[in-house]
């Protein structure tokens, strides 16, 4: 099952807090697609997920300085 989370309107620290809490609710093997802004969220969200042992499957840049990242728990 694929979940989706938009954190483009969030600011520090709720960007990575929301991702962490969403991943905690999911079962192992499920995927989470996160829409985020470049800068701090783009640098820290994928790194923080990998530190927890989750896989960052892709990081796709979009037109308006936003990125779509796909994480597998």
């Amino acid at each position, binding site marked *: 099952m694929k979940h989706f989370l938009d954190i483009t*309107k*969030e*600011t*520090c*620290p*709720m960007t*990575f*807090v929301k*991702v*962490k*809490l969403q991943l*905690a609710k999911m079962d192992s093997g499920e995927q989470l697609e996160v829409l985020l802004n470049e800068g701090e969220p783009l640098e*820290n969200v994928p790194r*923080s997920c990998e*530190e*927890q042992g989750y896989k960052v499957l892709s990081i796709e840049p979009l037109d308006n300085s936003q990125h779509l990242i796909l994480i597998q728990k």
Partner: protein
Amino acid sequence: MNQPANDKKDISIVCFSGEFDKLLAAYTIATGAAATNRNVTMFFTFWGLNALKKERGRKPIGKDFLSRVFNWLMGGRNNLPLSRLNFGGASPKLMSGMMKKSNVAQLDELMDAATALGIRHFACEMSMHILGVSKDDLIDDVKEVVGVATFLNESENAHIIFI
């Protein structure tokens, strides 16, 4: 949520100030650290305890006359002053409005996130005794009332931040 087991340095925050902006800073660091896989402990002492009172407004809690007056004057989470330009309590409300407009997390939201992230809340035994505050007066996040020795033991491998 359980806190993570990894080699990142733990973070311990002493929340001494009961001021709105300083507690906001404490909870921002705490939730940011927990969300980036660090174990976080918050130790509330003196004025910081006001943020943890179940009663969010002014209530004369305590056993004797002086502590009841003191607690009424200090109030709870709704009465936290700004550390500068407080203007009789008007500024925290104005700042909350500005934060909402800028989509920045409010103190309540950060405190809820801290609960969800499993951040440990310790309350200082000594200052609770002075102020006549009991564990029943504090929110359920406070799992333990401890002394400084316990806090330091639990923070042995942590960065300690004093706010």
